């Protein structure tokens, strides 16, 4: 590529024979306004996403009140991996994510299938408008709503179970039910909105497939089973893999609003653990080490999810 012709007669920018610095110069003259527009956003990314990576070296240091910190290598990781609490929160994270995959993930698919059967456009719109709402509420609000619903004295759930003769249960402070509270609040929040993704996929199904099925005398169930579901399998696969990619997260914003001293043994997850030992008890380095553990394995999961998804369905995480 590098040019033989150094006589600097004006050569059009598109020519491959221009010296490299000159091509860059010409390119710059053409593109600088775009870089100016890019710059503010790019600087934000560099500051808020790349500088923290530098700060994370704290995981390998002894933090001292008077700098500089001392390099201690993997000491904090050794402490972390020999701490029973760490394995407890890791187990909680994995259990909660597994419960969500099993019990939350299928719900929006069912909701979408049901919505698709509704013939009246008005009714469908009404149902959609209602069930999308919780997705846009904060977890603080949803926790507040669930505290009210689950109140042992007058909450709706205990009113209903009481009607069938059950004793009131304080679900929010009952260790046995706390994981299920996470599952149900997640369903309440996301089942409606997530069904939209499947509904979009269903709409994309070729109508002639339904007509053909009807000609073959297929009933409602057969059409769902043999046309609709096969038609949305790629979407299901993509979203399933995406969910797997977030397996180590289990949603900090949710859990932190349902966590209390009674249910800590069941729903304390990696992120809440990092928050507690880091910002509450001040074990910065240990917390950063735990955070890095999650970051690295989370990265491996997301990348695997991306490439598996791309391979299987042609659609990646981004």
């Amino acid at each position, binding site marked *: 590529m590098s040019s033989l012709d150094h006589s600097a007669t004006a050569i059009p920018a598109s020519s491959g024979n221009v010296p490299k610095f000159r091509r860059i110069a010409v390119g710059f003259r053409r*593109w600088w306004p*775009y870089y100016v*527009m*890019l710059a503010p*956003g*790019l600087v*934000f990314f*560099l500051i*808020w*996403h*790349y500088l*923290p*990576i530098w*700060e994370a070296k*704290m995981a390998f240091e002894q933090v001292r009140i008077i700098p500089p910190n001392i390099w201690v290598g993997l000491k904090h990781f050794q402490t972390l991996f020999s701490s029973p609490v760490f394995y407890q929160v890791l187990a909680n994270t994995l259990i909660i994510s597994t419960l969500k995959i099993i019990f939350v993930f299928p719900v929006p698919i069912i909701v979408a299938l049901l919505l698709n*059967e*509704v*013939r009246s456009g008005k009714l469908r719109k*009404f*149902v*959609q408008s*209602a*069930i*999308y*709402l919780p997705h*846009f*509420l*904060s*977890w*603080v*609000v949803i*926790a*507040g*709503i669930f*505290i*009210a*619903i689950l109140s042992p004295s*007058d*909450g*709706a*759930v*205990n009113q209903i179970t009481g009607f069938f003769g059950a004793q009131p249960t304080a679900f929010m402070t009952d260790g046995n039910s706390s994981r299920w509270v996470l599952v149900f609040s997640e369903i*309440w929040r996301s089942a409606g909105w997530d069904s*939209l*993704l499947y*509904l979009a996929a269903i*709409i994309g199904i070729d109508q002639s497939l*339904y007509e053909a099925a009807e000609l073959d005398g297929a*009933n*409602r169930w057969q059409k769902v089973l043999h046309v609709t579901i096969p038609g949305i399998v790629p979407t299901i696969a993509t979203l399933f893999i*995406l969910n797997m990619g977030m397996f180590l997260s289990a949603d*900090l*914003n949710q859990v932190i*609003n349902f966590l209390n001293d009674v249910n800590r043994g069941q729903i304390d997850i990696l992120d809440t653990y990092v928050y507690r030992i*880091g910002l509450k008890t001040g074990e910065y380095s240990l*917390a950063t080490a735990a*955070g*890095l553990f999650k*970051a690295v394995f*989370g990265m491996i999961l997301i990348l695997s999810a991306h490439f598996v998804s791309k391979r299987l369905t042609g659609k990646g995480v981004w």
Partner: protein
Amino acid sequence: MASAPRGTAIRRTPLERIEYAIIVTTLLALVVVTLQPILNLVAVSFSDPAKVAGKSGLDIWPSGFSLDVWLLLLQHPNVQRGILNSILITGVATAIGVIGTALMAWGLSRPKLPFRRAIFILVLITIVFEPGIIPDYFLMKRMGLLDSYWSVILYKAVNAWYLIILVRFFEEVPEELIEAAELDGANAFQTFFQVVLPLAKPALATIALFYLVFHWNEFFRAMIYLTDQTKYPLQVVLRQFVVEGDKLAIVGAENAANNIGVAQINLKALKAGMIIITILPILAIYPLILKFFTKGTMSGALKG
């Protein structure tokens, strides 16, 4: 769209009618399960506070009627400050977010931009690798932004996902349009602001709504970065009061001790009112959300 009458000539059998009734009933039950808890809180907040204790969670109608809860909350300094703080943070952060994202997305959407791929990868890495909340916190500290509104406003001011959505949108802008503008003597900035942006209004509105909802609902960063309680956004005030059960956050130590003012109002009613106040802005823009988000998601952007 979803199920335009497929083969209208088909006669429904009784079994099909029953099936259909079950489907509709199930969906209506979902609507009830979604809305009833919210309606119950509205009812509690408008009830006569004296009649709230023991009011069934299944009720959606006020017992008696009183504006006491609403008046007390809306005149309460912590609530008022919370509302103002939330509006300030949400407003400024959304403005910065939309402008920063739009400008960056436009640059990144030009297929021939040198280093385009490198910058893209730089952005994608941030989605994949997040070093965690402690390094974020120490960065804030090092920059002297702890306990400042800016810590909450600037934190991830440009969102990688929203950026990707906008880049995908801008990539669809026909190249001829831009060339035509340049032939007319417009420079890159004029082309962007006068030709591209007007085209992108629906996409920008969608992104603005994304940011608006995100910042209004954000509580965790505010909770860890802000120590001065007078800077707390509404979500954090709500969290203190309802989730952490710190009744003094609203009732106030002095009132509680002397059982005056707010302290005389039933806590349950106050909590219900607080939750509804926090939801109100979302409810106010919900019609817009339905219009833009539903369309945006339907046309292929994967997650919101």
